């Protein structure tokens, strides 16, 4: 399996740092993270991203705007919600995203 590059976007810095550690702890994933939507858009433009995880604290309005921006840059980009803020659901969410498209 090729290494997947996964971008996590959240608002809470501590959780975002934890997600960075968790994503990079697995050989098959490369994780990059940010708390800023503008930075996320630049990352998706400049880097090959396989999956975007939307994490904590993103308001409904900001999420809608961010999703629209990401899709504009990369129409086929997979974007899913990450729940739980830790390792418990992460593996299942990523597996499901690549088998089923979107949870």
């Amino acid at each position: 399996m090729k290494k997947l590059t996964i971008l996590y976007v959240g608002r809470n810095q501590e959780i975002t740092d934890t997600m960075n550690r968790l994503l990079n702890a697995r050989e098959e994933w490369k994780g990059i993270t940010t708390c800023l939507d503008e930075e996320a858009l630049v990352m998706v433009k400049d880097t090959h991203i396989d999956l975007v995880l939307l994490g904590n604290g993103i308001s409904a309005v900001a999420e809608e705007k961010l999703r629209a921006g990401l899709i504009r840059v990369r129409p086929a980009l997979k974007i899913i919600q990450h729940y739980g803020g830790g390792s418990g659901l992460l593996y299942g969410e990523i597996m499901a995203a690549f088998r089923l498209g979107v949870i």
Partner: protein
Amino acid sequence: MAQFVLHKGSTRGHANHGWLNAHHTFSFANYHDPERMHFGVLRVLNDDSIDGGMGFGTHPHDNMEIITIPLEGALAHKDSLGTSSVIQHGDIQVMSAGTGVQHSEFNGNADQTVKLLQIWLFPNKKNVTPRYGQITLDITKRHNNFQQILSPDPDDAGVWIHQDAWFSLGTFDENFETDYQIKKQGNGVYAFVIKGSVTIDGHELSTRDGLGIWDTDKISFKFNTPDTEVLLMDVPMKL
């Protein structure tokens, strides 16, 4: 017509980390089964045994309703909201992770295993203010009765969460029979047998088996062993 899904206890995911022996009814951590992702909004049902003095160091959560039910022993909890507490059998703990909370959970005894159920539900509202709650219940009131331990209503019995879910616990005599009325249209019930044997709508379940039932409004129970303990989780089926 009622629909159901049966999860025998022996088919659950299992991870033995030495200090932690965990069984997962639904996909969790490195256990992944696409057929076992959730039952409605019920996403996690973990059955954990933690060795004396051991536990989970500080780690974050967000956007989950997390319920912990100690079965044996004591669990010490500390979190970023300033909570420091110990819960034991008879207590129910709830944490709405919302925008983000950090917590640790350790066995509160050095020389006794703590056994607990940890349950995660998807919330009905994202990014709520994180909150912690716990309650001590009179366990004598669950003899031959489903005692409500959780609801969506802060003024109702038990703890409350950000979801249209109701949990109940009961301990039943052999041959006792009862019905359970589902609380809200569109909800299903996941029954988890903590101990003993019970027949639920014709399905015989043993210790640590789980049965999900939906598209019905009433469920019938016949208890086959003395002191049979059952947890009911009445949850929305639509994510």
